[in-house]
């Protein structure tokens, strides 16, 4: 094949590729349109509605592509940069779902402000676009672009309410740390590139660099640096210091965005990269993964024990959860990749639903505080006697907490069961021990939340009586309860879909 042929073969985009890529194209086109919309008329209602529409259509398109069967098998390669398979669109659907939740929750928060917040919605859409590029990427360059699109828009969102007490501090911490993380990741990519001469994920593992000794050092350092960059964004243990502060200081819908969208996208790209490059064959890399996973489980769970602030508690709990999730990267053979993807996506779905539920309740309480002009954060004690005042909310909260703790008949249990299974198959006994002990410690801070919810009112508790309560959207709550119950009792109905 002469070079000209090669070039034309690479650059050609046929109709099938356009169809497969359509959710991402739609998303980017929607962003351009919403910019035009802002120029035409500045109205918060219209822009919120419009971004929700874009997300719904993206979601529907990716669901349609998933069910049409185009993506089954190895996936579709779209130029060297992107490769789309069913798993990437499954995570894209998860991302769109949580973005929809974020936008509808933001509408409540932004209502109390005077300005027109159109750039807020635009930034959320850009975060989603970054996440979509990440989950579809098959090349270090596209991964880098998605990574940066996601993190820089997030910095803008984290410091968005600039008059708030912690806005500058949180924004700056997040900016410096995420910039450090991306430069670590970039240095890793540069080292890998210098040894392999290839920026694509999919290299032939027979010529993989760890088979030739002299290349070993820089390549291993490169892989480590790349992993540490991603671990920063996933807030895994040695790189977790930013998480509690940023979770606490960011506006609550944005905290939800960080906890779900950014982490799901990062984890998907991490799995894609590890499986395509075949890092699971490398014993040293697996050792690093196991160490990081154990450390995250331990640190996340123990630091959450004494936490009173709900947002900080969720930060620590997410550190532990992503420690558990790292189990899927430790696989023994290529055959188990499919199972690893399925268990990871199931676990992520459970994590997503629980997070959306808990953060929406946190937002309801924050709204109540800001109406009564006592700007403060939601603490565990504020939830006292919630069950006796707001049944639906309390039931939802109990469900999500049980799901996070991994009690049977919830999605979280099924997810943990898959992870356990995965660890048994790959015979990593350390990880099983960590998972069991970690979940045990986890109960020690999940159960008190449930006790608090049922506690009968004492004098110190905040009284949110029926008449002055913020109306949380009832349908939303009931929908979440039903979904999390249904998938917990019949996990097959979801995992079948993941096949």
């Amino acid at each position, binding site marked *: 094949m002469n070079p000209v042929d090669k070039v034309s073969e690479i650059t050609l985009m046929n109709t099938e590729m356009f169809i497969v890529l359509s959710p991402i194209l739609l998303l980017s086109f929607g962003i351009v349109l919403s910019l035009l919309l802002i120029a035409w008329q500045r109205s918060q209602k219209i822009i919120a509605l419009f971004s929700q529409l874009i997300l719904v259509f993206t979601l529907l398109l990716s669901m349609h592509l998933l069910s049409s069967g185009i993506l089954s098998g190895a996936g579709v390669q779209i130029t060297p940069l992107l490769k789309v398979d069913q798993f990437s669109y499954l995570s894209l659907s998860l991302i769109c779902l949580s973005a929809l939740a974020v936008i509808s929750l933001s509408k409540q928060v932004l209502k109390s402000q005077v300005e027109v917040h159109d750039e807020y919605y635009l930034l959320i859409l850009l975060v989603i676009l970054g996440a979509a590029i990440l989950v579809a990427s098959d090349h*270090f*360059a596209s991964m*880098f*672009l998605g990574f*940066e699109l996601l993190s*820089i828009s997030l*910095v*803008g969102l984290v*410091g968005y309410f*600039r008059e708030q*007490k*912690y*806005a*500058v*501090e*949180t*924004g*700056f*911490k997040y*900016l*410096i740390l995420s*910039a*450090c993380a*991306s*430069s670590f990741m*970039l*240095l890793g*990519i*540069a*080292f890998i*590139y*210098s040894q392999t*001469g290839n*920026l694509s994920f999919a290299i032939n593992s027979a010529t993989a660099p760890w088979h030739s000794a002299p290349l070993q050092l*820089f390549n291993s350092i490169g892989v480590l640096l790349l992993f540490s960059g991603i671990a920063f964004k996933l807030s895994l243990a040695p790189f977790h210091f930013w998480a*509690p*502060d940023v979770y*606490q*200081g960011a506006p609550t819908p944005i905290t939800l965005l960080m906890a779900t969208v950014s982490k799901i996208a990062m984890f998907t790209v991490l799995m894609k990269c590890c499986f395509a490059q075949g890092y699971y064959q490398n014993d040293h890399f697996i050792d690093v993964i196991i160490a990081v996973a154990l450390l995250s489980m331990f640190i996340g769970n123990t630091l959450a024990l004494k*936490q*009173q*602030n709900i947002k*900080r508690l969720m930060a620590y709990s997410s550190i532990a959860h992503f420690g558990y999730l790292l189990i899927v990267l430790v696989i023994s053979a290529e055959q188990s990749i499919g199972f690893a993807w399925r268990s990871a996506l199931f676990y992520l779905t459970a994590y997503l639903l629980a997070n959306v539920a808990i953060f929406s309740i946190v937002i309801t309480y924050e709204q109540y505080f800001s109406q009564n002009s006592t700007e403060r954060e939601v603490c565990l004690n504020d939830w006292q006697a919630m069950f006796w005042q707001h049944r639906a909310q309390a039931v939802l909260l109990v469900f999500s907490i049980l799901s996070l703790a991994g009690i049977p008949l919830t999605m979280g249990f099924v997810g943990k069961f898959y992870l356990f299974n995965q660890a048994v198959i790959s015979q990593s006994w350390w990880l099983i021990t960590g998972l069991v002990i970690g979940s045990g410690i986890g109960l020690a801070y999940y159960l008190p939340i449930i006790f608090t919810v049922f506690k009968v009112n004492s004098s110190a508790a905040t009284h949110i009586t029926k008449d002055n309560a913020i109306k949380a959207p009832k349908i939303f709550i009931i929908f979440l309860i039903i979904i999390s119950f249904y998938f917990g009792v019949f996990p097959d109905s979801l995992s079948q879909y993941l096949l």
Partner: protein
Amino acid sequence: MTVIPLTHILILSSLLFIIGFVGVVVRRNTLFMLMSLEVMLNAVGIAFIGAGSVWQEADGQIMFMLILTLAAAEVAVGLALLIRMQRRYRTLDIDVLNQMKG
């Protein structure tokens, strides 16, 4: 023409990267922290260009252009935050940003 070995380029870029990282960690002034971040990113750029020239490909240089774009965007956001900080605290010292505890 003498060819510079790849290892030397990588060591140079690692050194520059470490200098930048130490700058981010040690400096208390936020403006200098942003500048140290630039040093880190440009160190990576050297590694990419060196590697690209060894493999005789344009990939490394294109990655460097992407990095330049990133650096510009990051600094834009960073400077905006810097202005907010100056307005609010009347200082650029990073130590004033330690109100969150727990």
